[in-house]
């Protein structure tokens, strides 16, 4: 017996789109994260620069990494849901199960 899913998932025509989208969004965030690490390593004193409301670059960038993660996640979910809805609608209208 193979390892079938705990709950069978139906066919997902939006799957390839979501994978591509996920990889691009992952790369975008990775670049943002890598820049943070790079600034720390190459220009550590820049992290002490005051950039906003008395807060330094380290604090602002750190908070930004957390907030941007959430924003990207929400955008990703919205785009995925839109694509899933498109295929569900196409399936209903075509009645063939293909979008």
């Amino acid at each position, binding site marked *: 017996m*193979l*390892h*079938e*899913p*705990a*709950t069978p*998932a139906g066919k*997902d025509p939006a*799957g390839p789109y*979501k*994978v591509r989208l*996920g*990889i691009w*969004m*992952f790369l975008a*965030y*990775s670049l943002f*994260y890598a820049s*943070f*690490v790079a600034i*720390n*390593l190459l220009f*550590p*004193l820049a*992290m*002490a620069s*005051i950039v906003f*409301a*008395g*807060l*330094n*670059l*380290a*604090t602002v960038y*750190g*908070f930004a*990494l*957390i*907030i941007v*993660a*959430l924003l*990207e*996640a*929400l955008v*990703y*979910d919205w785009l*995925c*849901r839109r694509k*899933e809805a498109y295929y569900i609608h196409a399936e209903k209208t075509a009645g063939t199960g293909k979008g």
Partner: protein
Amino acid sequence: MAIFIFVFFVVLVIGLSLYLGNKTKTSSAYYAAGGKIHWGVNGIAFAGDYLSAASFLGICGMIATIGYDGFLYSIGYLAGWIVALFVVAEPLKRLGKFTFTDAVDANYNSRGIKLTAAISTLVVSICYLIPQMVGAGVLVEPLLGIPHAWGVLMVGAIVITIVATAGMASTTYVQFLKGSLLIIFSSVLVGAVVIRGLTTQPDQGGKVPFYEYTQLSAARAGDQITVSDTGWNVVEQKEIKGGLVFLKLEKDGMETWWSASEKDGELSLYETQSVVFKKDVKWINGQPASETNQLRQVGNLEKISGKNDGEAGNLNLFSFLATMTSKDTTVRTWKTANFVDSAEQKVTVYYPSLVTGDRIMRPGLKFKVEGTWLEKLDFLSLMLALFMGTAALPHILIRYYTVPSPASARKSTIVAIAAIGFFYILTLFMGLGAMVNGSLNPADSNMAAPLLARSFSELLFAIISAIAFATVLGTVSGLIVAASGAVAHDLFDRYLKIKMDDHQKVRAGKITAFVIGGIAILLGILFKGMNVSFLVGLAFAVAASANLPAIIMLLFWKKTTAKGIAASIVVGIVSSLTLIAFSPELYTLYGRNPLDAPIPLNNPGIVSIPLSFITLVVVSLLTPKAKA
């Protein structure tokens, strides 16, 4: 009050488990809560799983002692969820059934993958279990006044009861409850910190008078230091590694240790706190340890925006951080030195060190980003492991199987990112709050957040401690479910092909949970005193090295073979554990000179993660593709 609230929480958790236990009849219910958990509940339960003792106790403690460097853990742990959401969540949900092994083996049906992935799950789970159990002991000691070992034993017994009664369903609801309460009461604590404001003489709301540490004038005659103030006699002068000089002084028959420091050409001696073992009897600050003579809590501001004896009220979240960031703000932090004195007595000295706000609020106090290339590489290695580790933690991965669909897996991850991200922002305020409110136990930073709560009220302390205890309970439960799944499901059922009906599978899982719980209790007692966050950071590195290359490559590289996956898991585990075992931090723990460590890095990820990826690619190319 503390005991009442603690008992209430424990009874609530066990009651919930017994109630849900009646519904756990099948292996799907036991290992994956029947795949019926709502994504919103699962998202908060993710947060509950993830915000373990390391996050709540460890990170707050680290920020309280090393400032922004501790917050780097918050940033890295949260960023790791991006890998989980964009790369792993939905595909993994489609592939797997109960365990991490199910997912990586889904397309291969390989005995090699089953064995190596199950071992990997066990190794990572145990690496993660140790700090949780240590954290439990640390927490229960002051809360209930019982020894560390009894605390660990109690946690183990409760967790085994939870897991053995209902498995993933009860673990999920315990995590949901705990995750929600943790975020709510951490917000309350942060609000209280900001409203209280900043002062150079924190007195815990008038409950504990501020202790003014003494400074003495001294002079140097050759190598010898003499005290200029009268009444003090120098008993011993001790210079230790790094050029630090400590003096044992005697006054009125009491011997205490002082640290020597020179500033602007003037030599001064600063009062420290000390623990000395005289013939196995513990002495604290020159007197035998007792209920009334314990180490004083520490941490205060010396200057606020350039003013001694200052106060800063009417703060908001931004102005609190801005005041802390100012180069004119100075914090009295505390460092530790260990040595043996002339009477062959073990001495631990906690000595003050003044650091300006701009140094506290940027990386560099612990991670030497301005140091040598090796020190920079170590920092890079840590940030890489934190980023890559989350999506490879077995107890996180199995939570994807508790929801009904891949879309639910995605949504629950987003809820988790929101909850965890919000909490991690709070950690900066809680850590800094503990740093300046006299809420730090100099011997154990792990209690920073609960002690900060105590500085406001006993009720808040009791609630926060009970939640922290539930944090440990929930995380340990999740880890034990993951580990029992690896043994009972992956090894017994899949690898050894022992014939079991559904009922027997559940029983095998419960028996395994009992055994692993026992091992966790033992390790929790043995590893007493080790740094909680440090251990969790290592667990992340092992998980990222052993599991992530397999997950990523099987999803995105069509030439990946079963042998390639199995080889990469083995290389990931062995290389990361070997690098850790011979690292400077571990050499310190062995009681040896860290400079003698053959591996110069404390964090193995920068070597072991690429090595595991390369192994997978090379072995896959060398072996024929054998998909089932």
